[in-house]
């Protein structure tokens, strides 16, 4: 599907948001405390430009974010005063949040990455969602999913980040998606017709792009994402027939504890043939990165693609609007999902393995309620607001305006631009998490540090496997609290 430059739905989104405000205002108020309550919210990527301008351009369109929903909620509950925190998302966000949570002064609702929550619940910083997910969402129309049990309104993606104690700590109401952006002009110049349908075709297309003088992939080698997305994608094919042996609770998703137990029992290691072949495929993939990719950051890789010098760039739905609206872009861009691996690549991989949604479990509407709200007496109001915000009629406009994630709540409207990712959105969550999410951030960093020399050709596969297994065992021990 061809995309038009400068295409934007922001104005439409604002209109929808205002309509939602009116609709929500007419909704019957739920029975919550009538005491005067102040609710503080760090809305993260849903922070409105009113309190945190996203652009220095005075003509940049206004971002409503969570503002319309907050206003509508306050109108329904005049005793609640919502204060949005003007805290930008940056490399320091995590440190800021840890400081706030440590001091017990975090906002009542915090924008929280599931990765962070997976570490923080152990410190008893977050309120588990279970008690509230089992209650009716009073803001969902009777008979609709979620009207009897809030949990029912969420798509399965929310379960990906069930913590080791079996509980959920993040309200995940939308989903980002990963895909491969490609330069249609460079594809045509290289004689590539259509998009690859499997991993072998992807590698062949990369070879053709290289022969035509273009960089096949714009890769950020000094950040985790692209490497581990592909690595995790391969894992799900190479280990497809072993998922049942690790999945002790039979929910079809492999949690950190299940994988750590597999490592402890010796049933999962990097020295297994599927993992060794996976690493070899990663190295094959790395052979098509641009010169100096191991020292390139995300911005550098994106610039290389946007300036038309790389044929493909693996990124996500969050980059979609930036790409579409880039006035400097001089090529036609498309998106396709990571292609399946099959027996053409390795006899270890079966044919016709169904694809999975590898980005499931991540979104931008991802909020937690800190334990400090229990002491402050704001916990019920915080969850009531989250119920209100995740009701389809309120969530849809917010997600549509942002234009970078698809709703993960049944019945909520999506941004039409995200049809490009519709294929991946429809798939079930990937059972195996990527290497950066399988255990903890320390393992993720070490995975990248250890594989980089191998991918760069300065370290053997045996050494890589041996070093990775040392870190794997250490990570498993940390997850199991040993």
């Amino acid at each position: 599907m061809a995309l038009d430059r400068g295409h934007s739905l922001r104005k439409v989104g604002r209109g929808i948001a205002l309509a939602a405000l009116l609709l929500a205002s007419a909704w019957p108020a739920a029975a919550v405390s009538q005491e005067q309550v102040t609710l503080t919210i760090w809305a993260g990527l849903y922070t409105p430009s009113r309190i945190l301008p996203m652009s220095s351009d005075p003509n940049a369109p206004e971002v409503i974010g969570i503002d319309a929903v907050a206003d509508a909620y306050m109108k329904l509950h005049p005793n609640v005063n919502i204060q949005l925190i003007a805290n930008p998302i940056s490399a320091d966000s995590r440190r800021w949040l840890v400081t706030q949570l440590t001091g017990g002064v975090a906002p009542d609702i915090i924008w929280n990455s599931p990765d962070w929550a997976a570490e923080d619940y152990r410190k008893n910083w977050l309120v588990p969602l279970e008690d509230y997910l089992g209650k009716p969402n009073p803001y969902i129309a009777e008979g609709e999913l979620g009207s009897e049990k809030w949990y029912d309104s969420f798509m399965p993606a929310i379960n990906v980040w069930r913590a080791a104690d079996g509980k959920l700590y993040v309200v995940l109401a939308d989903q980002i998606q990963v895909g491969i952006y490609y330069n249609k002009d460079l594809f045509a110049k290289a004689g590539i017709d259509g998009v690859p349908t499997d991993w072998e075709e992807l590698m062949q297309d990369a070879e053709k792009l290289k022969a035509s003088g273009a960089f096949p992939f714009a890769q950020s080698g000094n950040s985790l994402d692209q490497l581990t997305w592909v690595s995790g994608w391969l894992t799900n094919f190479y280990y497809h027939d072993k998922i049942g042996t690790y999945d002790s609770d039979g929910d079809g998703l492999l949690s950190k504890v299940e994988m750590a137990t597999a490592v402890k029992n010796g049933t999962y290691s990097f020295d297994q043939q599927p993992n060794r072949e996976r690493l070899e495929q990663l190295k094959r993939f790395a052979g098509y990165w641009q010169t100096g990719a191991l020292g390139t950051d995300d911005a550098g890789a994106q610039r290389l693609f946007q300036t038309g010098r790389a044929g493909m760039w693996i990124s996500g739905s969050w980059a979609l609007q930036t790409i579409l609206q880039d006035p400097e872009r001089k090529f036609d861009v498309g998106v396709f999902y990571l292609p399946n691996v099959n027996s053409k690549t390795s006899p270890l991989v079966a044919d016709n393995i169904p694809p999975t949604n590898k980005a499931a479990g991540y979104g931008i509407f991802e909020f937690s309620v800190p334990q400090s709200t229990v002491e402050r007496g704001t916990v019920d109001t915080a969850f009531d607001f989250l119920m209100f915000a995740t009701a389809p009629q309120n969530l849809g406009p917010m997600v549509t305006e942002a234009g970078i994630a698809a709703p993960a709540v049944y019945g909520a409207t999506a941004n039409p631009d995200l049809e490009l990712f519709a294929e991946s959105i429809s798939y079930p969550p990937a059972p195996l998490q990527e290497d950066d999410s399988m255990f903890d951030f320390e393992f993720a960093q070490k995975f990248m540090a250890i594989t980089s020399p191998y991918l760069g050709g300065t370290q053997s596969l045996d050494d890589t496997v041996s070093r990775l297994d040392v870190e794997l065992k250490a990570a498993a021990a940390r997850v199991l609290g040993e």
Partner: protein
Amino acid sequence: MTTLPIASIAETTPMRARARIGKVWPVYLFIVPAFVLLCLFCYYPFFSAFYHSLFDWDGVNTRFVGLGNFQAMLGDEVLAASLPNIAILTAMGVFFAMTLPLLAAEIIFNLRSQISQSVYRYLFTIPLVLPWVVTVLVWRFLYDPIDGPINSILNAIGLGQFARAWLADPTVAIYAIGMLGGGGTGVGFPFVAGLNLLIYLAGLNSISREVIDASRLDGVNALQRFFMIDLPLIRGQVRTILVLTIITQIQAFQTIILLTRGGPGYSTMVPGMAMYQNAFEFGRMGYASAIGVVLFVVMIIITVVSLNRLRSPVEGDES
């Protein structure tokens, strides 16, 4: 001559002291906020690091592990990889921080025209106002393997075989960072650290004019004067810059976090970066505190040795 009885002195001195304190106490009050902040943000974390280095501490939960963190450091692959890197960066940092500013200071000092001296002094010190991050980003552009001027020039003059992915090649990345002056000494362009230049110039300007004139009468040439007169007489400045540079290098990782984050692999990892990662990315505050304590001890040892070995002749006479 009348003398004041001892008893009277004993009586009046405390009274005078009290009276004096009574007059000046508001002045002392002004430094209280600074002192409180100093204790809160400098001394408390400092002593807290010593204390927590003995604990398994994630920022919230603590468990006493004795010297366990220090023992763990001995088997830490990341720290082991960082030691040769910090040695290379410190050596390069010391070279850039000490030699080129000294050379520039000597040249400026020996200029006949006062106006020229001022102009050059300004030219070398103006880069001080540039934020370090800007300098680092300029270097990142220079090192860009595809668009960077360094590789472009090498290719243009027929030396393409020396072109590299400077920050992505583990064999050269640490030296590429060293060219910036290491972890962050404010060297940058034009490789003359402005602050160091000013310190050297101050030292050279303090040399007695008579000594310089006498040396000229004795037929001492420029090189002899540099090594036999100037250098010994500015040994105090040399020592200050040396100690400050080593301390800065050992604890710095700002450049690395901006350019390579310690990679590829651990080829540009330094102890400061490992400390930062353990504290703020892995939640191992106790272990990070232990790394900090070791770095502190190393810096203290180097400082004491440097101070003892580089006493200036003037100080030697005094002692």
